[in-house]
């Protein structure tokens, strides 16, 4: 996995609350058996107008947000379905960082599995950034995972919290399964102990 240390990037605004993963990537794009190429489905229904043509007002269709790597959005982003296709599609579009006042649990967790950083900032900080990004062409933010800060062009530094284990894995780009497998003796010991306590959980189900 690609490590995440610091990044500066163009910010794209999605000014909606409760954006669900069905909107991030609709069902017809879940039929793939690959992790890549999902950009095509990203916000598919919102990108289009009723006649099927591209909606020029949708943020991803606006020239000024082309090449954005940071998505700025509102509360409860990523709610609904557990589909990891949602972070895959955002990553495929170029977003490595998503900033919001809150995230749904499963989506938040899925981001870390893909070298992406979801940042929780205070609602008023997000509101101020949302206003600035709409009025300032080329608006960029700098995200520093090590120091847990987001810096604005005006040099305001907003701090964010992150679980230390997740931070370390993301910062170093560690393979999560490989890390767990380092504890295979502990897993085997657990299984031995548990099998004595609850043998009905270890019958062969086939």
């Amino acid at each position: 996995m690609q490590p995440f240390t610091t990044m500066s990037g163009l910010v794209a605004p999605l000014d909606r609350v409760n954006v669900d993963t069905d909107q991030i990537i609709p069902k017809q794009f879940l039929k793939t058996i690959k992790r890549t190429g999902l950009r095509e489905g990203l916000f598919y229904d919102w990108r289009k107008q009723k006649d099927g043509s591209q909606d020029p007002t949708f943020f991803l269709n606006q020239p000024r947000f082309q090449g954005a790597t940071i998505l700025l959005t509102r509360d409860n982003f990523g709610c609904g379905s557990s589909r990891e296709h949602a972070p895959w599609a955002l990553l495929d579009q170029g977003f490595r960082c998503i900033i919001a006042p809150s995230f749904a649990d499963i989506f938040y967790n899925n981001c870390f599995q893909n070298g992406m950083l979801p940042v929780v900032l205070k609602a008023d900080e997000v509101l101020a950034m949302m206003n600035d990004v709409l009025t300032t062409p080329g608006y960029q933010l700098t995200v520093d995972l090590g120091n847990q800060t987001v810096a604005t062009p005006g040099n305001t530094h907003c701090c964010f919290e992150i679980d230390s284990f997740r931070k370390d894995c993301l910062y170093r780009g560690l393979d999560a399964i490989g890390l767990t497998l380092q504890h295979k003796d502990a897993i085997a010991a657990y299984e031995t102990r548990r099998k004595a306590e609850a043998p009905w959980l270890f019958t062969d189900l086939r």
Partner: protein
Amino acid sequence: MAAQTLFDKTWESHVVRSEPDGTTLLYIDRQLVHEVTSPQAFEGLKLSGRRPRRPSATLAVPDHNVPTTDRTLGIADPLSAIQIRTLEENCRDFDITLFGMSDIRQGVVHVIGPEQGFTLPGTTIVCGDSHTSTHGAFGALAFGIGTSEVEHVLATQCLVQKRPKTMEIRVDGVLPNLCSAKDVILAIIGKIGTAGGTGYVIEYTGSAIRALSMEGRMTLCNMSIEAGARAGMVAPDEKTIAYIKGRPLAPTGELFEQAVRAWQQLTTDMNASYDATVALKAEDIAPQVSWGTSPGMVIGVNGKVPDPHTMADENTRKATEQALAYMGLTANMPITEITIDKVFIGSCTNARIEDLRLAASLAKGKHVAKTVHAMVVPGSGLVKQQAEQEGLDQLFKEAGFEWREAGCSMCLAMNADVLQPGERCASTSNRNFEGRQGAGGRTHLVSPAMAVAAAIEGHFVDIRTWK
């Protein structure tokens, strides 16, 4: 020992090791797998040369893409067909039990787990599907995960987790006539919001919860995720044990007796505390109908479509305006005046035998309105078989409902069962997001009883007084 909640007991019996910061390696007893969220996980195993640690702790079934019409005709959509074939190949290559498309045991993953006795109290259960919360009805800690974690569990039988907070949702009293678990959970989501449970595991308690059947408890726990909670739980009791006994994958003989003794300990201790508590009175819960594009946008059937102009919070007002525009509804319109085009009775929320029995009894001797197309999709092949043995299929067909094969179907419309743009559906499923049942489709979430009444009248009616 300090007083513990049901969640505390289940969590602690699954800790393999923990770090000083609380990061825990949690043992996962069982994993369910379906065709949509697993191909990339198996591909990951292949690329890294890893094998499943306990293949026999995993059960796979295709459900999202399967046709609900004649299966002998195959699958028209080549992408759906490839995804299902990929699941079959992966299960063969990795020695995992699969209930294939022609197996009578095939069905929606969250229906077949309990049906087979795969779901047991006090276990940890995961699936690459957010409605894994369903299995919490048995007092299991069950939650949805992404595909990377599906691979993680296959390879290690563990997940790295941070301990969630606990929330008690207590519902005491007696539900009004024909009000069901679906109305309870919709009312809860309406009260706490779609992010109200974020970061929590919910335990449902109270006399109204104890009075629910196992099917009802599954409906309730199923939609915990719509309240933002990854998992919901109900403590096991005599109903739970009676439901499990004799199921194909449940323990038998002395092992079953031993298990029952352990399951009887799985209750929240007196004096144990939760991080948050919410209470509802069952008597106050009217039949619920969602009017918007988020499950929290829900109201009693005697209510009116909310008016954004009366909303002080800008975010709420804007979201309501967007929802009403999408849904084609006007503010202050009575819910009972909303006319519908389609009815879908099915999904992991409401497609078990009890749901179908109630729906069929209400449809008996009546007929679906001329303006409505209605379909019933059983949760599994075995539910379908049982319903047919009881003659429920005949009651449905005589009343003008289509009777289909088992699958996820129009809950998320990955197969051919799709709403057309602008079509309005009364649905017993769990999500009313924009486009969920088809691009431009409009979903109203309701109970099976409310769906039947709406199918027959062509608009929503109050099931409590419907004749």
